[in-house]
C-alpha cells in the first residue's frame, strides 16, 4: 500500500513536469490585468479568472481567419492523404507485380528526405508550378508520408485471402475489391492516420512560413508566431491566443487517446 502511494506521488510529480508549462500558460491567459504574470514567488492562481484576453487575442489579429484556414487545410489534406496513401499501399500489399519491392523502398525513402532540407528546392518547385502563396502549396507536400504507406500496406496484407477471393469469384474488379471490401477492413488504420495527420497539419509552421506571403492564408501556428511578434508586450493576450490554438488537438487527443497511444506503440513495433 505504501509502495503504491509512493508510485502515485512519483507519477504525479512527473506529470507536473509535462503539463506544468501548459498550466502556467493557462494561468497567464486568465489572470486579470492587475495581477502579475511573472514574479517571485510565482502567483499562479488567477484571482478572479477572466476571459478578456481570449477576446482580445481573437480581435487583435484575424484569429478567426487563421483558425478557419487551418480547418480548411486539415479538411482538404486529410481525405486526400488517406485516399492517396491507400491507393499506393494497396498494390504494394496485394498485387504481384514486377518491381514491387523497389516501389516500396522508393516510398519508404521519403523518410530520409526530411522536410527541413526540402524547404529550398520545394519552394522553387512551387514557384515553377506557379503555386507559391496558394492553399495548394501548403497541402501538396502533406499528402504523402512513408508512415501512411507503411501502416496501410501492413493492414492490407493482413486481410485474409478468402475474403477477397469470394468477391473475385463474383466477378468484382480490382478497384471494387479495394474500395468495397478492403477499405472498410482497414478503417481503424485509416482512423489512426487521420488523427496523426490532423495533428501534424494543425501544427505545421515552417513550410507555410516559407511558401505563404499573404496573411489571409496563414494557418493557426503561423498566426501565433505573428501574434507573438505584434504584441510582444501583451503577455496575457499571447498566452490566450496560444491556448486557443491548443484546444482542437487536445480535444481530438482526449477523445481518441486510447487509439492514438496504442497505434504509436503498434507502429513502432511494426
Amino acid at each position, binding site marked *: 500500500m505504501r509502495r503504491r502511494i509512493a508510485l502515485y506521488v*512519483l507519477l504525479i510529480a512527473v506529470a507536473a513536469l509535462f503539463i506544468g508549462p501548459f498550466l*502556467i500558460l493557462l494561468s497567464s491567459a486568465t489572470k486579470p490585468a492587475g495581477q502579475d504574470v511573472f514574479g*517571485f514567488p510565482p502567483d499562479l492562481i488567477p484571482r478572479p479568472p477572466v476571459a478578456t484576453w481570449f477576446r482580445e487575442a481573437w480581435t487583435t489579429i484575424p484569429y478567426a481567419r487563421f483558425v478557419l484556414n487551418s480547418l480548411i487545410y486539415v479538411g482538404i489534406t486529410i481525405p486526400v492523404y488517406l485516399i492517396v496513401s491507400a*491507393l499506393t499501399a*494497396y498494390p504494394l500489399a496485394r498485387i504481384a507485380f514486377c518491381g514491387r519491392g523497389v516501389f516500396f523502398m522508393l516510398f519508404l525513402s521519403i523518410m530520409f528526405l526530411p522536410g*527541413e532540407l526540402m524547404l529550398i528546392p520545394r519552394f522553387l518547385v512551387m514557384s515553377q508550378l506557379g503555386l507559391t502563396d496558394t492553399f495548394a502549396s501548403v497541402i501538396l507536400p502533406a499528402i504523402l508520408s512513408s508512415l501512411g504507406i507503411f501502416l496501410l500496406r501492413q493492414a492490407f496484407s493482413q486481410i485474409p485471402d478468402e475474403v477477397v477471393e469470394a468477391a473475385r469469384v463474383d466477378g468484382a474488379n480490382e478497384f471494387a475489391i479495394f474500395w468495397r471490401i478492403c477499405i472498410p477492413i482497414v478503417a481503424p488504420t485509416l482512423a489512426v492516420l487521420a488523427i496523426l495527420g490532423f495533428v501534424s497539419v494543425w501544427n505545421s509552421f515552417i513550410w507555410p512560413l516559407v511558401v505563404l506571403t499573404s496573411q489571409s492564408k496563414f494557418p493557426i501556428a503561423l498566426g501565433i508566431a505573428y501574434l507573438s511578434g505584434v504584441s510582444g508586450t501583451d503577455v496575457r493576450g499571447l498566452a490566450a491566443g496560444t491556448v486557443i490554438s491548443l484546444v482542437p488537438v487536445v480535444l481530438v487527443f482526449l477523445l481518441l487517446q486510447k487509439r492514438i497511444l496504442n497505434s504509436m506503440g503498434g507502429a513502432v513495433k511494426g
Partner: protein
Amino acid sequence: MPGLKGRVVGQHWYTPYAFMLPGLLCYAAMFAWPAVIAIQLAFSDYDIVHPVRFSGLDNFIELGHDPRVWIALRNSLLFVVMFLPLTVVLPLFLAMLVNLKLRAIQAFRMLYYLPVITSMVAVAVAWRYVFNREGVVNWMLGLFGAGPIDFLLDRHWALPTVVLLEAWKSAGLFMMIYLAGLQAVPSEQVEAATIDGANAWQRLRHVVVPALRPTFAVTLVLSMLEAMRAFESVYVLTRGGPLDSTLTLGYYIWSKAFEDYDMGYASAVGLLLWAIMIVLAGFNLLVTRRRDV
C-alpha cells in the same frame, strides 16, 4: 506473404501502376524533383534574382573557409551529445513507470504524451513563461540560492535550454516506443529472474535492457537524426542567437536561404547535413547489426 499470387481476373499489367499513379506523381513532384534541384543548386550560385548559374565546387570551397559553418556544426554535435541521454535513457524510465499495473495509468501515459502532439510554436510560447527571468524555474533556483538566469539570452544557457525543450517535447514519443518494447519482453523471463532473487536493478540490467536492444537501436537513430536537424525550436526560441550560440546547421541553412537569399550556398550546407545524417544512420545500423551476431 498473403495476397502475393499470379495474375488474377480483373487485373491487368497496368493495374498496380494505376493504383499508385497519384502517389507516384506526388512523389515525383514533392520529393524526387526537389531532391534533384537541391543537388543542382548546391553547385550553383543561385540567389533567387539571377538565373541559376553553375559554379562548380565554389560553394564547397567556401564551406571550408566559413567559420559559421563550423560553429553550426559544433552546436549541432553538442545538441546531439546533450539530447541523446535525455531521449534514449530517461524515456526508458518513464516507460517503466507507465508500464506499472496501476489504476488510471492510461491517464498518466496521456499526460506525458501531451507535449508530443502540440505545436512547437505553442510550446515555445509556454516555455517563455516558465524560463523567463522572473518565471517559475528561476524562482525554484532562488530557493537553492542560485540564479536568476536569463536562459534564452545567455550564450552559455541558450543551447542547453533549446535542447531541454526539444527533449521535453519528444520524451513522450520515445516513452511510447520503449513501452511497446517493454510489453514485448516475455514476462516469464522477468518472473524467472525475480524467483532467482534478482532485484529490480539486476532485472533491468540483465533481462530488460538486453531484450530491448532493437528498441535502443531505433531510439538512438531517431534521436540522433532529430537532434541533427533541430531547427523549428531554434527558430521559435532564439533565432540562432545570442552570438550564434544556438546556430545549428538546420538554422544556418534557413538563414542563408531565406534571410540572405544565398540559395546555392544554403543547399551546399544542406547536402553537408544530409551526408552527416546518412553517415550517422548507416553507422548506427552497422553497429547494431554487428552486436546482434
